């Protein structure tokens, strides 16, 4: 318990610093064009949603490029990007803001959501299902045509500028009844589906991200494909593009390809010994 609490404090302190205005809005801007290769028309769709001021929900398995896509879009649209990784201790004041005491004085500090509304940025709530349900409710007025953010403590209501956009991400692979997105929340978003890119493109991505030769990336993708075949046959999720990139990075830094794949792909995916052995054999078959 103690360390969780400590972690919580450290996190809050970190946020307080951030909230205390020490990070300027320019630093939220995505400065360099992030690497992203569009799979279909998702860029156009997102831009259309943005123009129409519609909130967007990104759905897809873990590690398929949702977060990267948002970064890319923020860069394209030249808007600041404020990302909040949701967790079950996230309170609404963590999102909206709170009063802090400073040398006997009190000072109001905006939360990331408020800040994003004020600067007209893109607020990205990652893994929204992890947040407590009462927390998610604060975004509701922002997501319909009112586009309002009530700040109860200050008795203010902020109207979001046209540039502001709310995005959430969500992995529908979770089957837990405890972590389901409420319908009242889910029906406020337009949904975009993401999945792993087609293999030529995935090889391109892995090669670019891990800085490894194309041929090596092709092998990693081939391996990924074989392991994805095992989804629903004992594996809950296949190897994500992210894991393939991790493996690539390890290889790049001089770790033997087979070992790199075991560390980055085989071990994280499953604890089942026979499954792990089978994956290992797939690795030694492909690599």
């Amino acid at each position: 318990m103690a360390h969780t609490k400590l972690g919580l404090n450290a996190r809050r302190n970190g946020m307080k610093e951030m909230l205390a205005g020490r990070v300027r809005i320019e630093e939220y801007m995505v400065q360099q064009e992030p690497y992203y290769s569009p799979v279909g028309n998702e860029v156009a769709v997102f831009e259309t949603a943005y123009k129409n001021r519609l909130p967007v929900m990104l759905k897809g398995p873990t590690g398929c490029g949702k977060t990267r896509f948002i970064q890319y879009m923020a860069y394209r649209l030249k808007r600041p990007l404020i990302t909040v990784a949701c967790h079950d201790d996230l309170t609404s004041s963590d999102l909206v803001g709170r009063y802090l005491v400073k040398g006997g004085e009190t000072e109001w500090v905006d939360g990331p959501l408020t800040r994003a509304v004020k600067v007209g940025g893109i607020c990205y709530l990652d893994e929204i299902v992890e947040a407590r349900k009462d927390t998610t409710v604060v975004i509701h007025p922002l997501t319909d045509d009112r586009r309002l953010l009530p700040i109860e403590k200050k008795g203010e209501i902020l109207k979001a500028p046209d540039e502001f956009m709310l995005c959430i991400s969500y992995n529908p692979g979770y089957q837990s009844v405890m972590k389901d997105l409420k319908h009242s929340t889910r029906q406020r978003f337009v949904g975009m589906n993401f999945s792993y890119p087609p293999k030529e493109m995935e090889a391109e991505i892995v090669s670019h991200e891990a800085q490894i030769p194309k041929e090596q990336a092709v092998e990693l993708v081939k391996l990924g494909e074989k392991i994805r075949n095992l989804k629903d046959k004992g594996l809950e999720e296949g190897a994500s593009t992210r894991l393939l990139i991790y493996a690539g990075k390890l290889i790049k830094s001089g770790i033997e390809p087979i070992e790199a794949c075991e560390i980055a792909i085989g071990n994280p995916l499953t604890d089942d010994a026979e499954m792990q052995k089978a994956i290992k054999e797939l690795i030694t078959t492909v690599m």
Partner: protein
Amino acid sequence: MAAFDDVKAQLFKILGQNSFGEDVIVQRYTGTHYARGLQSIDEAVPGLMTLEEAVLEEVYNLGMDLGKRDPEMAFYFFKTAPDAIKHFSFEDMKQWVAMGLELFDGYGAVPARNFFKGITRETIQKIHVHGLEYEGVARTLGIYLDGLSGGSLRLEKGEESYTDTRRVYLPPQVDLSDDNGLNFKLYKVMAAHKYAQMRYRSFELRSKELEELFERLESRYGKSASQEASTLESFLTLFPDRAMATDLFSLLENARVEHALRLEFRGLGRDLDLVVAMEWGLRPNFSKLSKREAVLEGLMQLLTRGTLREPLPEDLMPVVGRCRAMADKVLGEMATVEDTARATAEIYEILEGFDSPYAGFQDMYHRGVVKPERVTAGLRETQRELGEKMRRLLEDLKIKPPPEIDSQVQHAAGEVADPFAHGAPLDFLFRFGVELPEEIKKELLAEIEKQLGEMGQIDSSLLMKVLDSAGRKIRASIQARVTEFQVELTEEDARDAILYDEWDYKMGHYRAAWCALKERGMKRGSDKFVEKTLEKHRELVTQVRRQFEILRPDYKRLFREIQGEEIDIDAFIEALADIKAGTAPSEKIYIRVDKKERDIAVAFLVDMSGSTTGWVIDTEKEALVLMCEALEILQDKYAIYGFSGKTRKQCDFYTIKDFDEEYTEDVKSRIAGMEAFDYTRMGPPIRHLSKILDETPAKVKLMIILSDGKPEDFDEYKGEHGVEDTRKALIEAKRKHIRPFCITIDTEARDYMPHMFGEVSYVILDKVEKLPRKLPEVYRKLTT
């Protein structure tokens, strides 16, 4: 040779006595007999005298170990040992002794003495099993093969390693090495080799490309191609010596496939090298082979390692060289099985030039064998399934299936064993003389494109996948036919029954009070069932218990509470700041330590339709027993119900355990009493259970349905109608904040499950055996 007296003295030293057993008097109807049971140690001596000194020494040593436990057992050992030496190596002898000792420790002296009185065939078999057994590697290799092939090949145990294009058979054991790590590699390479044969299309020869060759062979050897068999089989039949042609063909094809495999899967090259090195020493010497056999052996060695194990006889060297040159065409990057067929014909001609006997050729062990008849049978099976899928698709499209398909489905006779006999592979889908709608064609072609990534070339297993997934999409977009057949509901039927509505998707409204559901008690079954199940799955039970222990409600600190034992500093400071700033502070500034309750109610609804008879229902019951064990630990509220019935008049709903009932002996015997009845009308029981769950207070309500197939009843409740009504019933349940989830063993379920239950609310098991393991796992995942 040891002298009689020496041996006898040694035995006496070890055994400590001169005779064993006892003389007995036996009463028979012929009178009293004196049976001689006493045996002198002299009887053991002559046999031992035949052994060499060194061996005898070891036998003494082994016998000494036995003698310490039981001299009589040791005596029988000495008597049988000379015979055993003939069967066993010395290592085996040790194992034989160990087996006897095990028997002695476990069951006492008498069975152990009997064990050493002679050597039975079972003993020999048991001792000779070395190495790795199929059962030990089946799951790992099954997953491995699934990963490689994307699920189109199934692993099975066979007498040797081969494939029929649908299943991969591997031998019961592999014992080429003392190192089981190497034996495993051998198993793995065998499986990969079979996958390669499918991936590089070893069995589906395209007769169109081989017309010229067929004509040439027909005129040369005067045999004509069979119309009945697959192209591969009829190709091989064209040769006068079919066995030799088959061997030659597989030799060349193995070289082609292995070459391609090494190119595509670089890692496998290492394992292949390892396995080849292991087998290299076991190749026969040229001197023991006839000329034809030696040429094949030499060619194989050159193709495998580029070198020969030993020099070939002078006269054969140039011939093998020529053959090797001809075989070059199968090693090209784009080489196909048709190239192999051509090379086979050419090299066969060379072999004919030798006037020598031919007893057969065995390729390397890891390559297994080719069984053309099994391939034909496998392809036929695939053809039949393809035809059926095609027909189903056409029916759904309301296109009358042409008679061709019927003949194909019925007995797959005639020329259809080869799907590509008539031209380009894509034509297969369109060759039935029916014009498919343009969009359907597009869908099929797109799917082919997609599947090509998995299996390298278009073959029938690929088409199968294509028809599966494209068919699913197409079917989802159209409405299927429903047989109109309704049953009257009389007043009699409705008495004492609860009436439920049924959804008519075609009319878009409910049929009011349509189904009569009756709650029924479950009869008692054998009370041993639960015990037996717990015994059978002992390991799993322990594992499940442990997993669920962890889930047990735990004490947790809840922050920002109105009251509690501690002050929440974060909340307190925030409140202070609020006060300073002049706004109303929150009162929630305490930390409360509380048991985090799992307020969950789960109901299991078990499909007891006729199709679950036997194995399926028994496994469902076993899974329920395990689930009860787990839930007793968690103390979640749970209930178990079953359903079946026949038409809307009779929807039976069986109560096995109610929510407010304890897990008593009664409940256990009701689980044991569950059996398979009639049909699967899913709507009414779901609606009824929704009602029960709705009246049960709990924060989270779960309905887990165990099923083995589509909703289906004797009347019109099938196809689209059944699916749509079930779907509607589930939507009603969701409206009551009940979360439905389905575990099914229907492998076709992917067709309708996503529509019926929603994308993430179901699990399909490929084998019913997995249910006892999977059910607790699913529950755990659902509720954490």
